[in-house]
Structures are given as structure tokens and as C-alpha cells.
């Protein structure tokens, strides 16, 4: 079996909020092209982990490496080819679906301010291309009908899809999904799964997702990381993790609390 290059490396990351240990010396790596799920009981530090990876939280110690280079701030993400969705949705609620998705790619724009003001050549071309690409993603995710609707007015399930569309728009190398299926009905989850798989297969995007639905996790992922109270409990293929007694104890334990 060929050794795949590590895309994302988490090295000994620790994070604390006012004394509460959110992450405790966590180390793992995500290989190019794999689907990696981060699971764990509530409060395990999963969202904190993703927030650290995406540069929103600064770890107290340790570092995050993407393609070998250290990753520090949120604004480096798009340039490096990393995109993410948020647990509580971080959509631009005053804008339309199309505008939100176009924003996903906007950082690539090269036309200058004046070219844009006068809608000259390069600006007009970029706008057109932007719209076409966005329309493609909208069609892929089945939300083309809501193209011109204001995002803030859409139902929750559709908003989740818009956020995914925005994240996919720049065809990222790495996609971080923070509970992409939270609050969805069975049908919505099934559709979301399908989109995620399609994105993975069509675009070759490496996925890191936080997910509570263990069935989904076992089904979709190649690699599972289990966190509990900030510490890494298990790290391996889904089957191995599922049978790990420590993991079982952590989950059962959390119920008993």
C-alpha cells in the first residue's frame, strides 16, 4: 500500500478556556483524500478542535500543519484551499443564496476596484464565471430553485445546504464540516450524506467532519478520531474504533452522568 502524504497534521495541541481544558495534547493526522470523522461525547472538544484548525482559536501549545506549513490565522484558509462550515451556521443572512455561494470563490478575483466599478472586461468576465460556477454548485446540491432567495428566510435544512455550497464553491483541498447534519430530518440527512460523498468523489476533497450520528460516521469515514474531555481516546479505522473498550466506556459513561 502506498504511503499517502499527510495533508493535515495536528501536533500536540492544547487549548483552555478560563481554566477549562478544551483540548489536551491532541495529536493526529489526516491523509490526503480520506474522510476523517471526529467524534466524542458532548463537551469533548470537537468544535474547539475544528476552530483551532481553522485558525479561529489560538492553541495554548502545539501547532497545526497543512501541507507541511504551519497554519495560524483564519484568513489564510481560503488561499490555502481550506473551507469549512459551522455548527451554528455562519451564513450571510442578508444576502441571496447565489451571493453567498459566489462569496466562496470571490477571494480568487483579480479584477481591480476600477474595473469592477466600470464593469470592464476582466471584471465582467469574472462576474459571469463566478455566477456560472455558483449555479453549478447550486444545481449539484439541489438548491438552484432558491438561487435568488434571501438566505435568512430559508428553512434550516436549506440553509445548511447553502453553507455547504459556499464551502464547496472554491473546490477546496480540505473541507472541515462541523456537524453538517445537526437538526436534520432523516431525508435531509440522507441527501446531505449524498452531497458530501459526491463532493468527496467528484472534487477529491479531503474531509474532516464532526458528527454525532454514529451510523453516518461508520458509513462515510475511512478514519475516526475519538475525543473525550479534550483528550484523544482512539484513532483508527471505524471498525477498530467502534470496538475500542475505552470509547464504549466514554459514551456509556456520558449517558450515566
Amino acid at each position: 500500500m502506498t504511503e499517502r502524504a499527510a495533508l493535515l497534521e495536528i501536533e500536540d495541541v492544547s487549548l483552555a478556556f478560563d481554566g477549562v481544558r478544551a483540548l489536551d495534547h491532541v495529536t493526529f493526522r489526516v491523509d490526503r483524500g480520506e474522510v476523517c470523522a471526529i467524534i466524542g461525547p458532548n463537551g469533548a472538544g470537537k468544535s474547539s478542535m475544528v476552530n483551532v484548525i481553522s485558525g479561529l482559536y489560538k492553541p495554548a501549545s502545539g501547532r497545526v500543519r497543512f501541507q507541511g506549513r504551519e497554519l495560524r490565522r483564519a484568513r489564510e484558509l481560503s488561499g490555502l484551499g481550506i473551507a469549512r462550515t459551522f455548527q451554528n451556521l455562519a451564513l450571510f443572512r442578508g444576502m441571496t443564496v447565489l451571493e453567498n455561494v459566489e462569496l466562496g470563490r470571490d477571494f480568487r478575483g483579480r479584477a481591480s476596484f476600477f474595473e469592477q466599478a466600470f464593469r470592464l472586461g476582466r471584471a465582467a468576465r469574472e462576474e459571469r464565471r463566478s455566477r456560472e460556477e455558483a449555479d453549478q454548485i447550486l444545481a449539484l446540491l439541489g438548491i438552484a430553485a432558491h438561487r435568488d432567495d434571501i438566505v435568512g428566510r430559508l428553512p434550516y435544512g436549506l440553509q445548511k445546504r447553502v453553507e455547504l455550497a459556499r464551502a464547496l464553491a472554491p473546490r477546496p483541498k480540505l473541507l472541515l464540516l462541523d456537524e453538517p447534519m445537526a437538526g436534520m430530518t432523516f431525508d435531509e440527512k440522507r441527501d446531505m450524506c449524498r452531497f458530501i460523498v459526491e463532493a468527496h468523489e467528484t472534487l477529491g476533497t479531503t474531509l474532516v467532519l464532526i458528527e454525532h450520528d454514529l451510523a453516518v460516521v461508520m458509513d462515510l469515514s475511512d478514519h475516526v478520531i475519538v475525543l473525550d474531555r479534550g483528550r484523544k481516546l482512539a484513532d483508527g479505522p471505524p471498525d477498530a474504533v467502534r470496538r475500542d473498550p475505552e470509547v464504549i466506556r466514554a459514551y456509556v459513561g456520558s449517558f450515566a452522568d
Partner: protein
Amino acid sequence: MIFFLEVLIGGLLAGVMYTMVALGFVLIYKASGVFNFAQGSMVLFAALTLVTLLEHGLPLLLAFGAALLVMLVLAVAIERAVLRQLVNAPPMALFLATLGLAFVLEGLAQLVYGTQVHGLEIGISDAPIRGLPLEVSKLDLFAGAVAAALVTVLGVLFQKTRSGVGLRAVADDPIAALAVGLDLPRLWAIAWAGAGVVALVAGLLWGARVGVQFSLSLVVLKALPVLIIGGFSSIGGVIAGGLLVGASEKLAEVYVGPLVGGGIESWFPYVLAVGFLLVRPTGLLGERLMERV
């Protein structure tokens, strides 16, 4: 040296006035989370009501009581007609609404009471007390005492009474407050009524010093730098802010003013506030905010 002290004291006294007006802002901010731009117009309205009643022959105490009643009714009306409709609005919308409110109140005040300047006599002289090396009048001392009293009362109310604690809870997290069963509309009404009272007192004292006139509502804008410098969340901060703004403004005017033609007071406090925000975004004694993603 004496001159410097005189200017300083003068500034501090002006600061006392600013503090009082700022208290009204703090009350409402603590309760509704909004910077009530209409506070200035409320001060003006209160002062005009009082002055008009006095001019119609009512004795001071009665006039004060009647004006108090008017302010309470006004405050509750505002809370019900405007604030309650904007419960879920973002802070900017609320602020803009109070801007509209300010205009309504100003127009109303001038329509009802006319535009001329009214002198306000409350029986305490504004002449410098003889024998002191500095220019301080009985009115200044009275104002200082009233301000101190007001601040103490408010401080006690916030810490000790149920309504006060409730208001602090609401300021902290309105939804949690609701969940615990606090009567939000009632608390808001209390806060606004309180602001109305503070407005009346401020209007009274200020009017006694400079006369009751339209520019009162503009001067009140200075409360914003006071609150920014002192921090919105604590009464101690308001006092610190008020004194700092009053003193620095006067000092700047006297020492730097002549170099540039004077009139610096009109913008100095705001520039100072900007400077503060750049260095200490939450003010001298304010709380630090944490943003959870």
C-alpha cells in the same frame, strides 16, 4: 498653579453633570442593551416641563413632583410604543429607533413649550462662594451632592433590590432572564422610568446653571465619550468617565485652545474616546467580552 486647579475643578464640576446624564444612559443600556439616543431629548423635555410649571406659579416641590409624573408616563409610553416592538432587533436598529425618538421628543418639546430660553431658579445661587480660593458656587456643591446621592441610590438599587438584580440579569442575557421567569416588560419600564427620573434631575441641575434651552440635548451627546471611557457597565466607571471627560475637556480648551483659536471642547472628548477605544475597547472599568463561535 491655582489657575490650573481652578480649571481642573471647573472641569470636574462639568464632569459631575456629564456623569449624571450618563447615568440615565447606563440605566437603559443595562436594562435594554441599547444606547438611548433620546436621553438628551428626555432631559430637555423634563427640564422644559419643570420650568413651565414653575413659571405658572407652582411651588418647586410640587412642580418637581408633577414633572416627575410626566416623565414616568413618558418613559413607560416610550418603552411600550417603541422598545417592545423592537425586542429582537439588532442593536443598530434599536439605536436608530432611539434616534428617531429623539427627534420626536425634540419636536414635541418645542411645539408644546416653545423655543425660547427659560431661566431656572431653584433657590440655590450659582455665584461663587466668597472666601474660597477657587470659584465654586453653592449650586456646584449642591449638584455634586445630588449626583453623589443619585449614584449611591442607583448603586444600592442595582445590588440590593430584586428589580435591580433583575435588571442586571436582563442586561447580561435577556433570554436566560426570560427563562428564569423575570417580567421583562416590567423591568424595562422600571429602567426607563428610572432614566426619566435621572433626566429630570439632570435637567433641573443643568437648567439651573445654564438655563433651559435647546442645546441641552446636544450637550448630552457628550455622555457617549463618558460611557466609552468609563465603560458602559459599571457606575464607578461612569463617574470616572464623567470626571475624566469634564476635566480633560476643560484643560485642553484652556491650555491647547488658544493655540488653535479655541472651541476645542466641541470635538475633544470624542477624539479622546476614539483613542480610548483603540487602546482599551471596553473602557476603564468595563467588562471584557468573549465571543463564542
